[in-house]
């Protein structure tokens, strides 16, 4: 399991306006494209110096492809990254703060200690 790679996906998509829209509209396709072309890029290095070993496991890939932020929380993805990206994608569909409150409600079953987010 790679919390790091989940976070890397959330981080690199969140900072790119086009990718935010692409992930909103086509989550499964975006995750597949990202894993095959972006997951191993060392940020700030050209493609010839990419890593060779990073991949999602099936559950991680499915959680991202399903926009399943509850599962991402349970897996220990960084909650700030998940929240920020999902607000960017879905806040627009709700009344003010409506999405954030629903997000909290969907996590209501979680109690302390929360899943470890250390990478």
């Amino acid at each position: 399991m790679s919390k790091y790679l989940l976070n890397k996906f959330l981080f690199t998509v969140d900072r790119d306006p086009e990718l935010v829209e692409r992930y909103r509209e086509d989550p499964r396709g975006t995750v597949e494209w990202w894993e095959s072309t972006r997951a191993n890029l060392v940020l700030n290095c050209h493609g010839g110096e990419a890593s060779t070993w990073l991949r999602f496991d099936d559950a991680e890939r499915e959680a991202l492809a399903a926009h399943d932020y509850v599962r991402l929380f349970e897996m220990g993805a960084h909650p700030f990254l998940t929240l920020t990206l999902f607000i960017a994608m879905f806040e627009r569909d709700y009344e003010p703060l409506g999405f954030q409150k629903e997000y909290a409600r969907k996590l209501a079953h979680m109690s302390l200690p929360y899943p470890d987010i250390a990478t």
Partner: protein
Amino acid sequence: MAELVAVIASTHHPFYYRASTATGEDRPPFADEWVRKVEAFRETLTRARPDVLVMVGSDHFHQLWLDNMPQFLVGKAPYYDANWYNEEREFGLPRMLFTGQEDLSSHVLREGLDAGFDLAFSNELRIDHSITCPIITLRPQNDLPIVPVYTNIFAPPLPRPKRFVELGRTIRQLVESWPSDQRVAVIGTGHLSLELGGPRQFGPHGPDPEFDAKAVEWIAGGDIEGCLAEVTLDSLHAPGNATHGFMDFMLMMGVAGEGQKADYVDTYDLFHTMEAYFTWYPRGGRS
């Protein structure tokens, strides 16, 4: 030597800019009182007449990332661009440009390394809302050179609370040993109890009002010892999953000094989180 003329600790609420500039139906009901409180807080910096600002904050996964994560980092650059696309998107924050005080950055880095802090540095740093928010609230004319200091309160493993306090003490010594006649204010921002991306987020107030009350008491009374006795990396999970940002307040308590009561204290209970504003005048407001 340089003079430390003010020590300021504050929350950095990214929604202040939008709330304070909104008009008509878009203006939230809590905005007017919030602006009043912020303007009163601003006056505590203005009256100290600073020439330079040391700005302590924490990058929120903007420039600093898990492939290369420093624990404490000092900017040393002639300029700093500021605010990021996702902060414009979510908070409506404007793009900003700061001037750097490179001489003080060099001094902090050299002397900080010699004092036992292996500080990372950056010669091209785009800073985020942890530093731009307090400029917007405390110095909106943005006319003073800065030295940004970033701490890791975000990506575990984190330094322990005591290390934040020690860095604060060291920053004070470094400012006061800077061979300059400049007047320096140190401004740091963090959080009280806060939950982001968890079940307790965006409630009618901060996730743990009891912790907030205790935290305000520690900070206002300069009770570093009491605070360190209760606050650990583990304990900070309980008030809210983003409460490790409180360690930046502990850093500022270190700058202000053990037992130093704040000269100015104000709070504002908002949805989601409590705002808290503190100012110390190391020379009792003289000079």
